[in-house]
């Protein structure tokens, strides 16, 4: 993200020579600035308020939530989080999500990086066709293939298993990962690879000991992107992980919590559960903000 320098010195030739013409312009700009700041602040509030409200409500009692939705909690009710974490099993689902996402992101990165490396660095017949087969997958939403996918997974004996989820997550992440990393491997200098080959380094060692370390920035960007995508996935687990509640992932647990909240009336527990789910995403976002923004926007600009 490069922002234009705000305090750039005037470069206009003869700039300081026209102070009289400058004054009405200044006033117009002052009003416009106030105006634009107003809009910017307004949208900031629109973005933040619902999230802030969620976090604050997570510390209130149900009575407080009903009586005064805008109010602050009398005391901080941490027991809401305990009820969500253990009572509504959010803790278990959280850990399940961690296991699934750890597996799926590793698999995606391994298969994606190897495929991308081959596309970027080796010539062979049919390379273009296979490459476009992968990248073409960027176009279509997952839900169009949902019905047959259900049966593919079931016939493979992977229905309701984490292995099934991991394989499917990885498969649907390949288009973007391959696309992004192929472009990245192409930007790396070829001279290093050639030198290594001349020195008698094998093709496999070249990849793992030379090329992968060089591609680290790209791998990190796309890894974070995949982490967020997999962590937030709801549609695939909802279809492929029906039944067995013990194996549910976080998104399913939250949905169940919201449904049960309908008749249990425990709003504070729902807000606490949502807050727990937002925290890891917020942490990743704050730490890796630059990579997240560039990774996600690169995903759209293909």
């Amino acid at each position, binding site marked *: *993200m*490069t*922002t*234009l320098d*705000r*305090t*750039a*010195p*005037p470069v*206009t030739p003869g*700039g300081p020579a026209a102070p009289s013409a400058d004054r009405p312009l200044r006033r117009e*700009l002052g009003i416009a*600035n106030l105006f634009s700041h107003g*809009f*910017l602040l307004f*949208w900031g509030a629109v*973005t*933040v*308020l619902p*999230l802030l*409200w*969620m976090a604050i409500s997570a510390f209130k009692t149900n009575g407080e939530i*009903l009586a005064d*939705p805008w109010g602050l909690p009398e005391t901080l009710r941490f027991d809401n989080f305990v009820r969500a974490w253990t009572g509504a099993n959010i803790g278990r689902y959280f850990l399940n999500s961690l296991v699934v996402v750890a597996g799926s992101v590793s698999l995606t990165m391994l298969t*994606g990086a190897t495929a991308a490396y*081959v596309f970027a660095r*080796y010539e062979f017949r049919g390379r273009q066709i*296979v490459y476009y087969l992968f990248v073409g*997958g960027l176009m*279509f*939403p997952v*839900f*169009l*293939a949902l*019905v*047959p996918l*259900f049966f*593919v997974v079931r016939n*493979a004996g992977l229905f309701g298993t984490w292995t099934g989820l991991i*394989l*499917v997550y990885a*498969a649907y992440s390949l*288009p973007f990962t391959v696309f992004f990393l192929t472009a990245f491997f192409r930007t790396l200098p070829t001279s290093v690879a050639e030198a290594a080959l001349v020195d008698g380094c094998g*093709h496999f060692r070249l990849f793992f000991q030379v090329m992968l370390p060089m591609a680290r920035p790209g791998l990190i960007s796309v890894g974070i992107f995949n982490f967020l995508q997999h962590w937030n*996935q*709801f549609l695939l687990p909802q279809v492929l992980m029906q039944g067995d509640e013990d194996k549910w992932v976080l*998104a399913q647990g*939250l*949905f169940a919590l919201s449904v049960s909240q309908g008749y249990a009336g425990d*709003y504070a527990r729902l807000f606490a559960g*949502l807050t727990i*789910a*937002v925290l890891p*995403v917020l942490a990743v*976002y704050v730490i890796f903000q630059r990579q997240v*923004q560039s990774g*996600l*926007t690169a995903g*759209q*600009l293909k």
Partner: protein
Amino acid sequence: MRHGKWPLIVTFLVPPVLLYVVFVVSPYLQAFQISTTDWLGYSADANFVGLENFRNLWRDDYVWNALQNNAILLVLVPVVTIVLGLFFSSMLTMGGRKGRAGIGGVRGTAFYRTVYFFPQVLSVVIIALLWKEVYHPNKGLLTSALNGIGLSAPTWLGDPATAFWCVLAVMVWSNVGFYVVLFGAAMSAIPKEIYEAVMLDGASRLTTLRKVTIPLLWDTVQVAWVYLAIFALDGFILVQLMTNGGPNFSTDVIGVRMYDTAFGSETKFGYASAMGVVMFFLTLSVAVLALRAGRRERIELS
């Protein structure tokens, strides 16, 4: 790189291709085949019925209703999101025309961007459940705010007249930040000299945006359009979790129709796949149309 490259190409390419073909390519292909059968799911019996499913689709009023909602989303979500995105990003990259030719963002640009972008990394499940609470007719953020200033509030998601617009607003809310960052990155790439020249010529801020910035950003806007269109044709999880198509089918979209047909009370897999096939071609043609209609002469920045 001649000798010994084949072992690497084979070991690196076979696992990803297998994964991708089994879980991504084959389901898409099977969707076409299933759409020509009367398959009712769990039994193995499926008879070939030709284009019967498509003929029934044509006469299905619920499908037309859902398609109509998708069509409205298809127009409004991209328009509103892109306009807001362009507006905010131009404020942030060059809103503060300080001094003479020093063009820069307003104060706090990086902060605004960080905040605006955040909804993009949140799970659709969290967004849907959170906004469902915000729209809650008794204890929701909106209702109590309106009541607080002495206005009566609508029932938001409970009223067929407002529910659709409430869902649309959430779609815009969750997307704007992303396009602010995307357009912002593209705007920063525009050489500053262009703006200095425009300012010297005395162009107003609006003229600058309309005549200089937007033409230079046209490629990016076009990409944004395609992605928002695909998003609007999908829009499925958000609707399913917030309203499940109700009340009285006022927020129904084709994704929800398809999901209900396949995994609802009756498992009409053949019919649901036919919807998937139709959506596949609709998505494809919308993307092609958007790219065609938006074609303009490309302006190269030196």
